[in-house]
């Protein structure tokens, strides 16, 4: 499989009133052609900003550094502005977390999709309009002629998310970043949207970076998973491996908290303790404040990301459930 994206040691910090806050630390990941890479973690762990940094969409107070950020052999850190504008939308497109606020309220939704086509393809307005309506149908919207001329306040969250997907997919990007595409939606629509994205991945060979805080959803969607905690990559593996042999206590906790109707557990498991603020990051392992197994070593030293079996990385001194342990 070809590597489409290769990111090494990505770090992101924010200049704020409280000083420099480190939000992402030395995260590395690869995205292969046709793959769906999941990024999972609790709110605030840096999933969105990691993805946004790829095409330079972070606010101006963000400081990004990395050793490498290759897309298709091109270094995204040093490309010129024009190339960046070309890549945005055409090669790498994003579906944002909040469909309600992520579209322009004053522009017809159809026009917002057409704008994308006109920006990257040489087509007449009429062709672009037709293509838009075709795509809107494809993502499961009906009555598209009328819908084309609607505004965001006239559509439901599910419909808006479909519009977002249509917009992101319209130029057949090589990479689609889906930032919690279903969090704002109710369960039945969630399933439909996920199915739709899988289908687009198969048909168009679009690789997807799928961001979620729900391992249950990731399980259904992704080929590989990266688990993040407080800006660190704490575990990374193929989905099947990660599900069978979670090595990091945090991953284990996340797996425990997936609701499972078959087991008929009445109480949902929740990882004890609270999520820390960026300004409170511990010196040692980021997870040590909530980890039952944490020792003095965990509190003072930061474990390295180590490969415990082929393509299975974990950042823990005492990984769980591993043949060698």
């Amino acid at each position, binding site marked *: 499989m070809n590597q489409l994206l290769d990111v090494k040691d990505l770090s992101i910090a924010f200049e704020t009133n409280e000083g420099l806050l480190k939000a992402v630390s030395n995260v590395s990941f690869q995205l292969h052609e046709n793959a769906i890479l999941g990024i999972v973690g609790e709110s605030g762990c840096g999933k969105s900003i990691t993805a946004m940094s790829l*095409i330079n*969409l972070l*606010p*101006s107070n963000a400081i990004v550094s990395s050793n490498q950020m290759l897309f298709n052999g091109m270094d995204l850190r040093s490309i010129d502005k024009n190339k960046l*504008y*070309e*890549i*945005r*939308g*055409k090669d790498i*497109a*994003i579906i*944002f977390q*909040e469909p309600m*606020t*992520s*579209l*322009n*309220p*004053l*522009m017809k939704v159809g026009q917002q999709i057409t*704008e*994308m086509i006109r*920006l*990257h393809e040489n087509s007449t307005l009429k062709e672009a309009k037709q293509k838009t309506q075709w795509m809107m149908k494809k993502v499961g919207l009906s009555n598209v002629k009328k819908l084309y001329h609607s*505004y965001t*306040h006239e559509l439901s969250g599910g419909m808006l998310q479909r519009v*977002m997907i249509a*917009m992101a997919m319209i130029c057949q990007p090589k990479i689609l970043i889906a930032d919690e595409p279903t969090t704002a939606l109710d369960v039945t629509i969630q399933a439909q949207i996920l199915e739709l994205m899988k289908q687009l991945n198969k048909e168009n060979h679009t690789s997807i970076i799928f961001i979620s805080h729900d391992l249950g959803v990731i399980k259904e969607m992704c080929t590989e998973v990266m688990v993040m905690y407080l800006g660190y990559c704490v575990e990374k593996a193929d989905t099947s491996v990660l599900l069978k042999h979670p090595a990091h206590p945090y991953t284990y906790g996340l797996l425990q908290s997936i609701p499972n109707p078959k087991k008929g557990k009445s109480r949902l498991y929740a990882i004890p303790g609270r999520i820390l603020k960026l300004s409170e990051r511990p010196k040692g392992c980021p997870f040590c404040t909530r980890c039952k197994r944490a020792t003095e070593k965990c509190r003072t030293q930061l474990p390295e990301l180590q490969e415990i079996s082929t393509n299975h990385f974990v950042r823990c001194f005492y990984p769980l459930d591993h043949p060698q342990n």
Partner: protein
Amino acid sequence: MRYLLRKMSSVIMTLFLVTVITFIVFEIIPGDPIAAKLGIEADKVQIEALRKELQLDQPLIVRYKDWIGNALKGDLGISIRFDEPVINLIQIRMMVTSRLALIALVITIIIGVPLSIITAKYDNKGIGIGTSIFSQIGMALPSFWLGILMTYLFGLVLKQFIPGRYVPMEQNFVQGLNYLLYPAIAIAIPKIAVVVRYLRNAIMDQTNQDYVRTAYSKGLRSHQVMVRHILRNALIPVITIMGMIIADILGGSLIIEQVFTIPGIGRLLIMGISNRDFPLVQGMVIYIALIVIAINLLVDIMYHFIDPRIKLN
């Protein structure tokens, strides 16, 4: 439809009240149109004749009824002072004032909007503070004072125009424009300050919205994002202020016309009032009320066009 009906009825009510109030005010304030016209040495017969002609011997209600009856037919009467139909007088002057206001408005927009965009773009403390200080000062400058300053600077020192003179555009377009330009600038400067103050904030608010990030993620360049996405959204909170600015520009021009001796509505109104020329003043009051109503309507319609979330009702 319901919107139009409601709007119409409120327009009619407003006009009715405005005319009644001016009639009453004219009854109360001291001064006499006959003395103003004939002078104090006029003989009794003349005075009586004119009094009859102007129906000043009739009670207020009768006069109002007559006046409104004629006004509804489109006849606003004859000016006492000028012996000319009020409508003609107003129309000629209105041309001058509306040109002045239009030029001032254009200046306000073509300087105010880009200035807001530029100052909003540099979101640093220094420019932020600088902009707010300058806009505070600009807003505090009275138009007439700017007018006097400009008359002195451009008229007397730089000799760009001759103070006290006025050339109509019909006579000489370039000269006419020149004579309206400086007063228009004097009107525009405080208004530019108002526009920058509000529009800059509105733009900065919009820049942090999610849809702007989406626009960038599509590959739009920053000027495209500004023009196609941010600006329209930023204009929404500014439209009402724009309406007030237009009304203000018309109001401001009343004073500026005095400073620059421009024969517009403002000077006509002042002459009308000081001569107690009530048909003239009455007619102008209607005119001005109509303009204010029209601006209100325009603001409503603009809202409707810019913001699809607002339905006229």
